[in-house]
Protein backbone atom coordinates (compact mmCIF):
# COMPACT_ATOMS: atom_id res chain seq x y z
CA UNK A 1 0.00 0.00 0.00
CA UNK A 2 1.42 3.42 -0.89
CA UNK A 3 2.00 6.18 1.66
CA UNK A 4 -0.75 8.28 0.07
CA UNK A 5 -3.57 5.83 0.82
CA UNK A 6 -2.30 4.38 4.11
CA UNK A 7 -4.65 5.55 6.89
CA UNK A 8 -3.01 7.87 9.34
CA UNK A 9 -3.00 7.50 13.11
CA UNK A 10 -5.85 9.97 13.49
CA UNK A 11 -7.94 8.10 10.91
CA UNK A 12 -7.27 4.79 12.64
CA UNK A 13 -8.20 6.25 16.01
CA UNK A 14 -11.35 7.66 14.43
CA UNK A 15 -12.15 4.23 13.05
CA UNK A 16 -11.68 2.58 16.46
CA UNK A 17 -13.77 5.27 18.14
CA UNK A 18 -16.65 5.02 15.68
CA UNK A 19 -16.69 1.21 15.84
CA UNK A 20 -16.67 1.46 19.67
CA UNK A 21 -19.66 3.82 19.57
CA UNK A 22 -21.48 1.52 17.11
CA UNK A 23 -20.75 -1.46 19.40
CA UNK A 24 -22.07 0.48 22.38
CA UNK A 25 -25.26 1.30 20.48
CA UNK A 26 -25.71 -2.33 19.49
CA UNK A 27 -25.26 -3.42 23.10
CA UNK A 28 -27.80 -0.83 24.24
CA UNK A 29 -30.28 -2.11 21.63
CA UNK A 30 -29.60 -5.64 22.88
CA UNK A 31 -30.31 -4.52 26.47
CA UNK A 32 -33.57 -3.00 25.20
CA UNK A 33 -34.38 -6.37 23.63
CA UNK A 34 -33.89 -8.07 27.01
CA UNK A 35 -36.21 -5.57 28.72
CA UNK A 36 -38.85 -6.12 26.01
CA UNK A 37 -38.48 -9.88 26.42
CA UNK A 38 -39.11 -9.60 30.18
CA UNK A 39 -42.45 -7.93 29.49
CA UNK A 40 -43.51 -10.45 26.84
CA UNK A 41 -45.34 -13.69 27.68
CA UNK A 42 -44.89 -16.53 28.40
CA UNK A 43 -43.26 -16.14 31.82
CA UNK A 44 -40.05 -18.22 31.84
CA UNK A 45 -40.17 -18.85 35.60
CA UNK A 46 -38.57 -22.30 35.52
CA UNK A 47 -35.76 -21.14 33.25
CA UNK A 48 -35.07 -18.10 35.45
CA UNK A 49 -34.94 -20.34 38.54
CA UNK A 50 -32.51 -22.67 36.76
CA UNK A 51 -30.35 -19.69 35.75
CA UNK A 52 -30.45 -18.36 39.34
CA UNK A 53 -29.20 -21.75 40.50
CA UNK A 54 -26.37 -21.79 37.94
CA UNK A 55 -25.26 -18.20 38.51
CA UNK A 56 -26.15 -17.79 42.18
CA UNK A 57 -26.32 -20.99 44.19
CA UNK A 58 -23.21 -22.44 42.56
CA UNK A 59 -21.30 -19.21 43.37
CA UNK A 60 -22.17 -19.17 47.08
CA UNK A 61 -19.14 -21.14 48.30
CA UNK A 62 -16.73 -18.99 46.27
CA UNK A 63 -18.31 -15.72 47.42
CA UNK A 64 -18.49 -16.73 51.09
CA UNK A 65 -14.91 -18.02 51.12
CA UNK A 66 -13.62 -14.89 49.37
CA UNK A 67 -15.65 -12.64 51.70
CA UNK A 68 -14.23 -14.34 54.79
CA UNK A 69 -10.65 -14.05 53.48
CA UNK A 70 -11.05 -10.38 52.53
CA UNK A 71 -12.62 -9.66 55.94
CA UNK A 72 -9.66 -11.29 57.71
CA UNK A 73 -7.18 -9.20 55.71
CA UNK A 74 -9.17 -6.03 56.42
CA UNK A 75 -9.24 -6.94 60.10
CA UNK A 76 -5.48 -7.38 60.24
CA UNK A 77 -4.60 -4.32 58.13
CA UNK A 78 -7.24 -2.21 59.89
CA UNK A 79 -5.99 -3.16 63.35
CA UNK A 80 -2.31 -2.42 62.58
CA UNK A 81 -3.29 1.00 61.21
CA UNK A 82 -5.87 1.93 63.86
CA UNK A 83 -3.67 0.88 66.76
CA UNK A 84 -1.18 3.64 65.80
CA UNK A 85 -3.88 6.19 66.56
CA UNK A 86 -5.28 4.33 69.54
CA UNK A 87 -8.52 3.81 67.63
CA UNK A 88 -8.50 0.01 67.49
CA UNK A 89 -11.99 -0.12 69.05
CA UNK A 90 -13.28 1.25 65.70
CA UNK A 91 -12.14 -1.85 63.82
CA UNK A 92 -15.74 -3.10 63.36
CA UNK A 93 -16.76 0.22 61.78
CA UNK A 94 -13.78 0.27 59.39
CA UNK A 95 -14.21 -3.34 58.27
CA UNK A 96 -17.99 -2.99 57.94
CA UNK A 97 -17.99 0.31 56.04
CA UNK A 98 -15.27 -0.72 53.60
CA UNK A 99 -17.08 -3.97 52.89
CA UNK A 100 -20.58 -2.53 52.64
CA UNK A 101 -19.77 0.58 50.62
CA UNK A 102 -17.10 -0.73 48.25
CA UNK A 103 -15.56 -4.15 48.50
CA UNK A 104 -18.80 -6.11 48.89
CA UNK A 105 -20.44 -5.17 45.59
CA UNK A 106 -17.18 -4.63 43.64
CA UNK A 107 -15.33 -7.83 44.59
CA UNK A 108 -18.53 -9.89 44.36
CA UNK A 109 -19.09 -8.42 40.89
CA UNK A 110 -15.59 -9.36 39.79
CA UNK A 111 -15.98 -12.88 41.24
CA UNK A 112 -19.35 -13.37 39.54
CA UNK A 113 -17.96 -12.12 36.21
CA UNK A 114 -15.14 -14.66 36.47
CA UNK A 115 -17.35 -17.55 37.46
CA UNK A 116 -20.90 -17.10 36.14
CA UNK A 117 -20.46 -14.30 33.57
CA UNK A 118 -17.74 -16.12 31.62
CA UNK A 119 -19.75 -19.37 31.79
CA UNK A 120 -22.81 -17.55 30.42
CA UNK A 121 -20.85 -16.09 27.49
CA UNK A 122 -19.20 -19.42 26.70
CA UNK A 123 -22.51 -21.31 26.89
CA UNK A 124 -24.40 -18.92 24.60
CA UNK A 125 -21.39 -18.68 22.26
CA UNK A 126 -21.27 -22.48 22.02
CA UNK A 127 -25.00 -22.49 21.27
CA UNK A 128 -24.36 -20.03 18.42
CA UNK A 129 -21.56 -22.15 16.97
CA UNK A 130 -23.63 -25.37 17.14
CA UNK A 131 -26.69 -23.64 15.58
CA UNK A 132 -28.81 -24.24 18.71
CA UNK A 133 -30.12 -20.66 18.56
CA UNK A 134 -31.02 -21.13 14.88
CA UNK A 135 -32.72 -24.36 15.91
CA UNK A 136 -34.85 -22.38 18.36
CA UNK A 137 -35.67 -19.78 15.68
CA UNK A 138 -36.84 -22.58 13.39
CA UNK A 139 -39.22 -23.70 16.15
CA UNK A 140 -40.55 -20.11 16.25
CA UNK A 141 -39.00 -19.65 19.70
CA UNK A 142 -37.18 -16.36 20.23
CA UNK A 143 -33.69 -17.10 21.66
CA UNK A 144 -33.72 -13.68 23.36
CA UNK A 145 -36.78 -14.78 25.30
CA UNK A 146 -35.86 -18.40 25.87
CA UNK A 147 -32.10 -18.25 26.51
CA UNK A 148 -30.83 -14.68 26.98
CA UNK A 149 -33.49 -13.02 29.13
CA UNK A 150 -33.54 -15.67 31.94
CA UNK A 151 -29.74 -15.61 32.22
CA UNK A 152 -29.49 -11.80 32.24
CA UNK A 153 -32.32 -11.53 34.75
CA UNK A 154 -30.74 -14.16 37.01
CA UNK A 155 -27.36 -12.40 37.02
CA UNK A 156 -29.10 -9.11 37.89
CA UNK A 157 -30.97 -10.52 40.85
CA UNK A 158 -28.32 -12.81 42.35
CA UNK A 159 -25.77 -9.99 42.64
CA UNK A 160 -27.37 -8.16 45.62
CA UNK A 161 -27.85 -11.49 47.40
CA UNK A 162 -24.29 -12.66 46.78
CA UNK A 163 -22.89 -9.25 47.68
CA UNK A 164 -24.79 -9.34 50.99
CA UNK A 165 -23.36 -12.78 51.72
CA UNK A 166 -19.86 -11.52 50.89
CA UNK A 167 -20.31 -8.64 53.35
CA UNK A 168 -21.65 -10.86 56.16
CA UNK A 169 -18.78 -13.31 55.80
CA UNK A 170 -16.31 -10.40 55.51
CA UNK A 171 -17.56 -8.88 58.76
CA UNK A 172 -17.26 -12.32 60.36
CA UNK A 173 -13.68 -12.69 59.03
CA UNK A 174 -12.79 -9.28 60.51
CA UNK A 175 -14.38 -10.37 63.81
CA UNK A 176 -12.33 -13.58 63.93
CA UNK A 177 -9.08 -11.65 63.45
CA UNK A 178 -9.98 -8.66 65.64
CA UNK A 179 -11.62 -10.51 68.52
CA UNK A 180 -10.28 -14.08 68.51
CA UNK A 181 -6.71 -13.44 67.30
CA UNK A 182 -5.86 -9.87 68.35
CA UNK A 183 -8.00 -9.80 71.49
CA UNK A 184 -10.37 -6.86 70.94
CA UNK A 185 -13.68 -6.89 72.76
CA UNK A 186 -16.41 -8.54 70.69
CA UNK A 187 -19.07 -6.15 71.96
CA UNK A 188 -16.99 -3.10 70.96
CA UNK A 189 -16.41 -4.56 67.46
CA UNK A 190 -20.12 -5.05 66.85
CA UNK A 191 -21.15 -1.78 68.54
CA UNK A 192 -18.76 0.34 66.45
CA UNK A 193 -20.07 -1.40 63.33
CA UNK A 194 -23.70 -0.82 64.31
CA UNK A 195 -23.10 2.86 65.13
CA UNK A 196 -21.20 3.60 61.91
CA UNK A 197 -23.48 1.99 59.35
CA UNK A 198 -26.45 3.96 58.03
CA UNK A 199 -29.19 2.44 55.94
CA UNK A 200 -29.53 5.00 53.12
CA UNK A 201 -25.90 5.99 52.60
CA UNK A 202 -24.34 2.60 53.19
CA UNK A 203 -26.71 -0.37 52.90
CA UNK A 204 -28.98 1.03 50.20
CA UNK A 205 -26.01 2.30 48.18
CA UNK A 206 -24.43 -1.13 48.43
CA UNK A 207 -27.59 -2.89 47.25
CA UNK A 208 -28.10 -0.45 44.36
CA UNK A 209 -24.49 -0.89 43.27
CA UNK A 210 -24.83 -4.66 43.33
CA UNK A 211 -28.08 -4.52 41.35
CA UNK A 212 -26.57 -2.20 38.71
CA UNK A 213 -23.41 -4.34 38.47
CA UNK A 214 -25.60 -7.43 38.08
CA UNK A 215 -27.57 -5.83 35.24
CA UNK A 216 -24.33 -4.69 33.58
CA UNK A 217 -22.67 -8.07 33.65
CA UNK A 218 -25.91 -9.80 32.68
CA UNK A 219 -26.16 -7.67 29.53
CA UNK A 220 -22.45 -7.78 28.67
CA UNK A 221 -21.98 -11.52 29.17
CA UNK A 222 -25.12 -12.48 27.21
CA UNK A 223 -24.39 -9.93 24.45
CA UNK A 224 -20.83 -11.19 23.95
CA UNK A 225 -22.09 -14.78 23.75
CA UNK A 226 -24.98 -13.92 21.41
CA UNK A 227 -22.69 -12.06 18.99
CA UNK A 228 -19.85 -14.56 19.24
CA UNK A 229 -18.32 -15.73 15.93
CA UNK A 230 -19.46 -19.33 15.30
CA UNK A 231 -16.18 -21.13 15.97
CA UNK A 232 -14.07 -22.21 18.96
CA UNK A 233 -11.63 -19.30 18.74
CA UNK A 234 -14.52 -16.85 18.42
CA UNK A 235 -16.17 -18.22 21.56
CA UNK A 236 -12.87 -18.04 23.42
CA UNK A 237 -12.30 -14.40 22.39
CA UNK A 238 -15.87 -13.43 23.25
CA UNK A 239 -15.51 -14.97 26.70
CA UNK A 240 -12.28 -13.08 27.37
CA UNK A 241 -13.83 -9.89 26.01
CA UNK A 242 -16.90 -10.33 28.24
CA UNK A 243 -14.75 -10.63 31.38
CA UNK A 244 -12.54 -7.65 30.47
CA UNK A 245 -15.39 -5.39 29.30
CA UNK A 246 -17.63 -6.19 32.27
CA UNK A 247 -14.77 -5.67 34.77
CA UNK A 248 -13.88 -2.25 33.32
CA UNK A 249 -17.52 -1.13 33.13
CA UNK A 250 -18.10 -2.32 36.68
CA UNK A 251 -15.22 -0.25 38.06
CA UNK A 252 -16.21 2.85 36.07
CA UNK A 253 -19.85 2.52 37.14
CA UNK A 254 -18.75 2.08 40.74
CA UNK A 255 -17.06 5.47 40.62
CA UNK A 256 -20.07 7.13 38.99
CA UNK A 257 -22.56 5.73 41.53
CA UNK A 258 -20.28 6.64 44.46
CA UNK A 259 -19.83 10.18 43.13
CA UNK A 260 -23.52 10.79 42.47
CA UNK A 261 -24.69 9.19 45.72
CA UNK A 262 -22.51 11.51 47.75
CA UNK A 263 -19.60 10.13 49.71
Amino acid at each position, binding site marked *: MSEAVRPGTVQRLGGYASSWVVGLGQMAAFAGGIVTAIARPPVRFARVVRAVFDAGVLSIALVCGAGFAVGMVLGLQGYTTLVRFGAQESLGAVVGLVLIRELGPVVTGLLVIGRAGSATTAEIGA*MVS*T*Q*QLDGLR*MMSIDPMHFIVMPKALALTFVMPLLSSLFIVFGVFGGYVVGVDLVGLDGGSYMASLENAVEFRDDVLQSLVKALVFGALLGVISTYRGYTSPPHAMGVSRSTTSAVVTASVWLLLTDYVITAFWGV
Partner: protein
Amino acid sequence: MRLAFGDRTIFENLSCRFARARITVLMGGSGTGKSTALRMIAGLQRPDSGKVRVAGDDIVGLRESGLQRVRRRLGMLFQDGALLDSMTVLENVGLPLREHTRLGDAEIRDAVHERLAAVGLHDVDSLLPGELSGGMLRRVALARAIIMDPEIVLCDEPFSGLDPPNVERIEALFQELCHDRGLTLIVTSHHMASSLRMSDQIVLLQHGRAVSGAPGQLATRGDPEIKDFLGADGAALARQVASGSAS
Protein backbone atom coordinates in the same frame (compact mmCIF):
# COMPACT_ATOMS: atom_id res chain seq x y z
CA MET B 1 -31.26 -13.86 -6.10
CA ARG B 2 -27.69 -12.96 -5.33
CA LEU B 3 -25.54 -13.64 -2.28
CA ALA B 4 -21.88 -13.01 -1.57
CA PHE B 5 -19.77 -13.32 1.57
CA GLY B 6 -17.14 -10.61 1.14
CA ASP B 7 -15.41 -11.18 -2.20
CA ARG B 8 -16.77 -14.72 -2.50
CA THR B 9 -19.94 -14.95 -4.57
CA ILE B 10 -22.14 -17.85 -3.47
CA PHE B 11 -25.16 -17.29 -5.73
CA GLU B 12 -25.33 -15.16 -8.87
CA ASN B 13 -28.77 -14.91 -10.50
CA LEU B 14 -29.85 -18.10 -8.76
CA SER B 15 -33.42 -19.01 -9.57
CA CYS B 16 -35.20 -22.23 -8.75
CA ARG B 17 -38.60 -23.51 -7.67
CA PHE B 18 -39.43 -26.35 -5.32
CA ALA B 19 -42.64 -28.18 -6.11
CA ARG B 20 -45.26 -28.70 -3.39
CA ALA B 21 -45.69 -32.20 -1.98
CA ARG B 22 -42.53 -33.38 -3.69
CA ILE B 23 -39.07 -34.37 -2.57
CA THR B 24 -36.38 -32.12 -4.01
CA VAL B 25 -32.74 -32.92 -3.40
CA LEU B 26 -30.20 -30.11 -3.58
CA MET B 27 -26.89 -31.49 -4.79
CA GLY B 28 -23.54 -29.98 -5.61
CA GLY B 29 -19.93 -30.07 -4.58
CA SER B 30 -18.65 -28.79 -1.25
CA GLY B 31 -18.99 -25.03 -0.87
CA THR B 32 -21.59 -24.61 -3.62
CA GLY B 33 -24.11 -23.20 -1.13
CA LYS B 34 -26.50 -26.10 -0.47
CA SER B 35 -26.82 -25.42 3.26
CA THR B 36 -26.89 -21.67 2.62
CA ALA B 37 -29.80 -22.17 0.21
CA LEU B 38 -31.73 -23.99 2.96
CA ARG B 39 -30.93 -21.23 5.45
CA MET B 40 -32.26 -18.66 2.98
CA ILE B 41 -35.52 -20.56 2.58
CA ALA B 42 -35.75 -20.67 6.40
CA GLY B 43 -35.13 -16.93 6.68
CA LEU B 44 -31.92 -17.49 8.66
CA GLN B 45 -29.85 -15.86 5.90
CA ARG B 46 -30.96 -12.90 3.78
CA PRO B 47 -29.85 -12.58 0.13
CA ASP B 48 -28.02 -9.44 -0.99
CA SER B 49 -30.74 -8.95 -3.59
CA GLY B 50 -33.69 -10.87 -4.93
CA LYS B 51 -36.68 -12.64 -3.41
CA VAL B 52 -37.27 -15.83 -1.48
CA ARG B 53 -40.89 -16.92 -1.65
CA VAL B 54 -42.20 -19.49 0.80
CA ALA B 55 -45.73 -20.68 -0.06
CA GLY B 56 -46.19 -17.50 -2.11
CA ASP B 57 -44.96 -14.99 0.50
CA ASP B 58 -41.69 -13.09 0.04
CA ILE B 59 -39.84 -13.52 3.33
CA VAL B 60 -36.80 -11.34 2.59
CA GLY B 61 -38.21 -8.13 4.05
CA LEU B 62 -39.93 -9.73 7.04
CA ARG B 63 -39.03 -8.84 10.60
CA GLU B 64 -38.36 -11.58 13.17
CA SER B 65 -42.01 -11.71 14.25
CA GLY B 66 -43.12 -12.16 10.62
CA LEU B 67 -40.48 -14.83 10.10
CA GLN B 68 -41.72 -16.65 13.21
CA ARG B 69 -45.16 -16.95 11.61
CA VAL B 70 -43.64 -18.34 8.40
CA ARG B 71 -41.43 -20.75 10.32
CA ARG B 72 -44.46 -22.33 11.97
CA ARG B 73 -45.07 -23.87 8.55
CA LEU B 74 -41.47 -25.11 8.35
CA GLY B 75 -39.43 -27.77 10.06
CA MET B 76 -35.67 -27.93 9.76
CA LEU B 77 -33.11 -30.63 10.36
CA PHE B 78 -29.68 -29.03 10.83
CA GLN B 79 -26.51 -30.81 9.78
CA ASP B 80 -25.31 -31.26 13.38
CA GLY B 81 -28.78 -31.66 14.84
CA ALA B 82 -28.81 -28.34 16.73
CA LEU B 83 -30.45 -30.03 19.72
CA LEU B 84 -30.34 -28.08 22.98
CA ASP B 85 -27.59 -29.87 24.87
CA SER B 86 -28.98 -29.02 28.33
CA MET B 87 -32.26 -30.84 27.56
CA THR B 88 -33.06 -34.54 27.27
CA VAL B 89 -34.31 -36.13 24.06
CA LEU B 90 -37.90 -36.04 25.37
CA GLU B 91 -37.61 -32.35 26.25
CA ASN B 92 -35.92 -31.48 22.94
CA VAL B 93 -38.43 -33.22 20.69
CA GLY B 94 -41.40 -32.09 22.79
CA LEU B 95 -40.25 -28.46 23.01
CA PRO B 96 -42.25 -27.11 20.02
CA LEU B 97 -45.41 -28.79 21.37
CA ARG B 98 -44.81 -27.36 24.83
CA GLU B 99 -44.26 -23.87 23.41
CA HIS B 100 -47.02 -23.69 20.82
CA THR B 101 -49.80 -26.04 21.99
CA ARG B 102 -51.82 -26.66 25.13
CA LEU B 103 -51.11 -30.40 25.19
CA GLY B 104 -50.49 -32.03 28.57
CA ASP B 105 -47.35 -33.94 29.57
CA ALA B 106 -48.79 -37.35 28.69
CA GLU B 107 -49.96 -36.24 25.25
CA ILE B 108 -46.62 -34.62 24.51
CA ARG B 109 -44.83 -37.81 25.60
CA ASP B 110 -47.03 -39.90 23.31
CA ALA B 111 -46.46 -37.59 20.34
CA VAL B 112 -42.70 -37.63 20.97
CA HIS B 113 -42.63 -41.44 21.18
CA GLU B 114 -44.59 -41.68 17.92
CA ARG B 115 -42.10 -39.47 16.06
CA LEU B 116 -39.10 -41.18 17.64
CA ALA B 117 -40.49 -44.58 16.58
CA ALA B 118 -40.92 -43.25 13.04
CA VAL B 119 -37.17 -42.53 12.89
CA GLY B 120 -36.34 -45.89 14.51
CA LEU B 121 -35.55 -44.78 18.06
CA HIS B 122 -36.91 -46.24 21.32
CA ASP B 123 -36.06 -45.79 25.02
CA VAL B 124 -33.98 -42.66 24.51
CA ASP B 125 -36.23 -40.22 26.43
CA SER B 126 -33.86 -39.44 29.24
CA LEU B 127 -30.64 -39.29 27.22
CA LEU B 128 -28.88 -35.98 26.66
CA PRO B 129 -27.69 -35.06 23.14
CA GLY B 130 -24.09 -35.55 24.30
CA GLU B 131 -24.88 -39.21 25.04
CA LEU B 132 -26.13 -39.95 21.49
CA SER B 133 -24.16 -41.15 18.47
CA GLY B 134 -24.05 -38.89 15.40
CA GLY B 135 -26.68 -40.95 13.58
CA MET B 136 -29.02 -41.06 16.59
CA LEU B 137 -28.60 -37.34 17.12
CA ARG B 138 -29.62 -36.61 13.53
CA ARG B 139 -32.68 -38.88 13.84
CA VAL B 140 -33.76 -37.18 17.08
CA ALA B 141 -33.38 -33.83 15.31
CA LEU B 142 -35.50 -35.13 12.43
CA ALA B 143 -38.18 -36.23 14.91
CA ARG B 144 -38.15 -32.68 16.34
CA ALA B 145 -38.35 -31.16 12.84
CA ILE B 146 -41.56 -33.06 12.02
CA ILE B 147 -43.25 -33.00 15.45
CA MET B 148 -45.48 -30.02 14.53
CA ASP B 149 -46.51 -31.54 11.17
CA PRO B 150 -45.01 -28.71 9.12
CA GLU B 151 -45.92 -28.12 5.47
CA ILE B 152 -42.30 -27.88 4.41
CA VAL B 153 -39.36 -29.80 5.87
CA LEU B 154 -35.81 -28.65 5.18
CA CYS B 155 -33.17 -31.32 5.79
CA ASP B 156 -29.44 -30.59 5.71
CA GLU B 157 -27.53 -33.81 5.02
CA PRO B 158 -29.98 -36.19 6.75
CA PHE B 159 -28.11 -39.34 5.68
CA SER B 160 -24.69 -38.28 6.89
CA GLY B 161 -23.41 -40.77 9.49
CA LEU B 162 -26.31 -43.22 9.08
CA ASP B 163 -25.87 -46.94 8.43
CA PRO B 164 -27.61 -48.46 5.35
CA PRO B 165 -30.72 -49.76 7.22
CA ASN B 166 -31.29 -46.32 8.72
CA VAL B 167 -30.72 -44.60 5.37
CA GLU B 168 -33.51 -46.80 3.98
CA ARG B 169 -35.71 -46.10 7.01
CA ILE B 170 -35.32 -42.32 6.62
CA GLU B 171 -35.87 -42.59 2.85
CA ALA B 172 -39.11 -44.48 3.49
CA LEU B 173 -40.13 -41.91 6.11
CA PHE B 174 -39.50 -39.09 3.62
CA GLN B 175 -41.58 -40.90 0.97
CA GLU B 176 -44.41 -41.37 3.48
CA LEU B 177 -44.29 -37.73 4.66
CA CYS B 178 -44.29 -36.47 1.11
CA HIS B 179 -46.56 -38.79 -0.80
CA ASP B 180 -49.00 -39.83 1.95
CA ARG B 181 -49.15 -36.67 4.06
CA GLY B 182 -48.43 -34.10 1.31
CA LEU B 183 -45.36 -32.50 2.90
CA THR B 184 -42.80 -30.69 0.76
CA LEU B 185 -39.27 -31.91 1.43
CA ILE B 186 -36.14 -30.03 0.43
CA VAL B 187 -33.07 -32.10 1.20
CA THR B 188 -29.36 -31.46 0.73
CA SER B 189 -27.32 -34.59 0.31
CA HIS B 190 -24.04 -36.01 -0.92
CA HIS B 191 -25.59 -39.49 -0.83
CA MET B 192 -25.99 -40.07 -4.57
CA ALA B 193 -27.88 -43.38 -4.50
CA SER B 194 -30.55 -42.36 -1.99
CA SER B 195 -30.91 -38.90 -3.55
CA LEU B 196 -31.57 -40.35 -6.99
CA ARG B 197 -33.88 -43.06 -5.59
CA MET B 198 -36.17 -40.94 -3.46
CA SER B 199 -36.26 -37.55 -5.17
CA ASP B 200 -38.89 -36.23 -7.53
CA GLN B 201 -36.62 -33.38 -8.53
CA ILE B 202 -32.89 -32.76 -8.30
CA VAL B 203 -31.45 -29.25 -8.14
CA LEU B 204 -27.77 -29.21 -8.93
CA LEU B 205 -25.92 -26.13 -7.66
CA GLN B 206 -22.80 -25.22 -9.59
CA HIS B 207 -20.92 -21.93 -9.89
CA GLY B 208 -23.69 -19.99 -8.16
CA ARG B 209 -26.46 -21.19 -10.49
CA ALA B 210 -28.97 -24.00 -10.40
CA VAL B 211 -29.79 -26.73 -12.91
CA SER B 212 -32.88 -28.75 -12.09
CA GLY B 213 -34.77 -31.70 -13.44
CA ALA B 214 -36.09 -35.15 -12.65
CA PRO B 215 -33.33 -37.61 -11.62
CA GLY B 216 -33.49 -39.50 -14.92
CA GLN B 217 -33.43 -36.32 -17.00
CA LEU B 218 -30.19 -35.01 -15.54
CA ALA B 219 -28.15 -37.96 -16.76
CA THR B 220 -29.44 -37.65 -20.31
CA ARG B 221 -28.61 -33.95 -20.63
CA GLY B 222 -25.52 -33.14 -22.59
CA ASP B 223 -24.21 -30.68 -19.97
CA PRO B 224 -20.56 -31.67 -19.30
CA GLU B 225 -20.63 -30.15 -15.79
CA ILE B 226 -23.58 -32.38 -14.80
CA LYS B 227 -21.79 -35.40 -16.24
CA ASP B 228 -18.67 -34.48 -14.29
CA PHE B 229 -20.63 -34.18 -11.06
CA LEU B 230 -22.60 -37.41 -11.48
CA GLY B 231 -19.64 -39.43 -12.73
CA ALA B 232 -20.09 -42.67 -14.62
CA ASP B 233 -21.68 -44.52 -11.67
CA GLY B 234 -24.08 -41.67 -10.88
CA ALA B 235 -25.15 -41.36 -14.51
CA ALA B 236 -25.76 -45.11 -14.74
CA LEU B 237 -27.74 -45.01 -11.48
CA ALA B 238 -29.80 -42.06 -12.73
CA ARG B 239 -30.63 -43.96 -15.93
CA GLN B 240 -31.65 -46.99 -13.83
CA VAL B 241 -33.88 -44.72 -11.69
CA ALA B 242 -35.42 -43.31 -14.82
CA SER B 243 -36.17 -46.82 -16.08
CA GLY B 244 -37.46 -47.81 -12.61
CA SER B 245 -34.94 -50.60 -11.94
CA ALA B 246 -32.77 -49.06 -9.24
CA SER B 247 -32.60 -50.87 -5.92
